[in-house]
């Protein structure tokens, strides 16, 4: 009975979807003016090679501010709800991986992840990538320490003072950079220093600083969320003393 009803409505939906998809224009047919404008103006106006980063950190930096604060509030909510396990109870968690090959591979993966993240953030205005992707890669480098080594190393590296401090520096730094533009007589979050030569790491002006700030905010927020979940789970499963 339920299957019959589902099949009837699914065929109707499939017919509508096929009708809609066949009416789409061909791939690559772009009628709107805004994309062509951006693609033509990014190089002479902003000296940036990555048009997506130019839109995210320069033309529409205010929307990125909203997204940063979204991640910030999500991390704050997770910390607020899951902060009932005190950090002093983590000493009795014993869960080190015993295989030496896994530990070595995990250390190499963590260092590689860290270097790759710094590379993606530093080239944020030149190659595909930028602040957000580099920030999550940075947090993933720390997550490798937990996954392949042990929880103690991870907890020592990402104490709540460090990860929350990183997140606050990122989110607050983004807003502070926007306010610095006021000191130069420009609008909020406008690009305030020299745009540099096209194609170099120093091109793009203060959008590069916004890039770095957003990567710190994303890395810190993701580390806060992950370490809050982890701390609670590890204390329940591996801790020998109760709360």
């Amino acid at each position, binding site marked *: 009975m339920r299957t019959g009803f589902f099949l009837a409505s699914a065929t109707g939906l499939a017919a509508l979807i096929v009708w809609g998809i066949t009416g789409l224009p061909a791939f690559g047919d772009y009628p709107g003016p805004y994309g062509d404008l951006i693609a033509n103006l990014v190089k002479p106006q902003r000296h940036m090679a990555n048009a997506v980063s130019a839109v995210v950190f320069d033309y529409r930096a205010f929307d990125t501010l909203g997204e940063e604060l979204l991640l910030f509030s999500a991390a704050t909510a997770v910390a607020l709800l899951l902060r009932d396990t005190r950090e002093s109870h983590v000493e009795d968690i014993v869960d080190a991986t015993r295989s030496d090959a896994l530990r070595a591979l995990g250390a190499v993966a963590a260092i590689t992840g860290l270097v790759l993240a710094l590379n993606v953030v530093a080239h944020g205005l030149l190659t*595909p*990538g930028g602040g957000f992707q580099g920030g999550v*890669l940075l947090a993933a480098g720390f997550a490798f320490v937990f996954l392949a080594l042990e929880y103690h190393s991870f907890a020592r590296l990402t104490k709540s003072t460090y990860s929350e401090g990183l997140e606050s520096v990122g989110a607050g730094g983004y807003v502070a950079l926007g306010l610095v533009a006021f000191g130069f007589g420009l609008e909020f979050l406008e690009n305030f220093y020299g745009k540099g030569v096209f194609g170099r790491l120093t091109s793009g002006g203060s959008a590069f600083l916004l890039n770095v700030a957003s990567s710190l905010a994303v890395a810190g927020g993701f580390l806060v969320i*992950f370490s809050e*979940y*982890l701390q609670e789970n590890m204390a*329940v*499963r591996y801790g020998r003393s109760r709360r």
Partner: protein
Amino acid sequence: MVPLQLIAILFVALGAVGVVAARDLVRQAIVFSLYGFGLVILFLVFQAPDVALSALVVSGIAYPLVLVGAIARVRGLEKRGPQE
């Protein structure tokens, strides 16, 4: 459409069916990250490298880590019983 684009779309469709068909929750998280890799290939073939990097990072790293953490927490609560 170029055959490479068709293959990428087919891979994404198969991955989506696989995510729905996985029964265990942790297994579903792992299959979801494979589906994310299929999405990355799709975005790359359709000439959107920035979106591909974002999809790789979110569906390969951020989403499975937070999901598995949440699943572990719910299972730990169930094991501890109704006193929580």
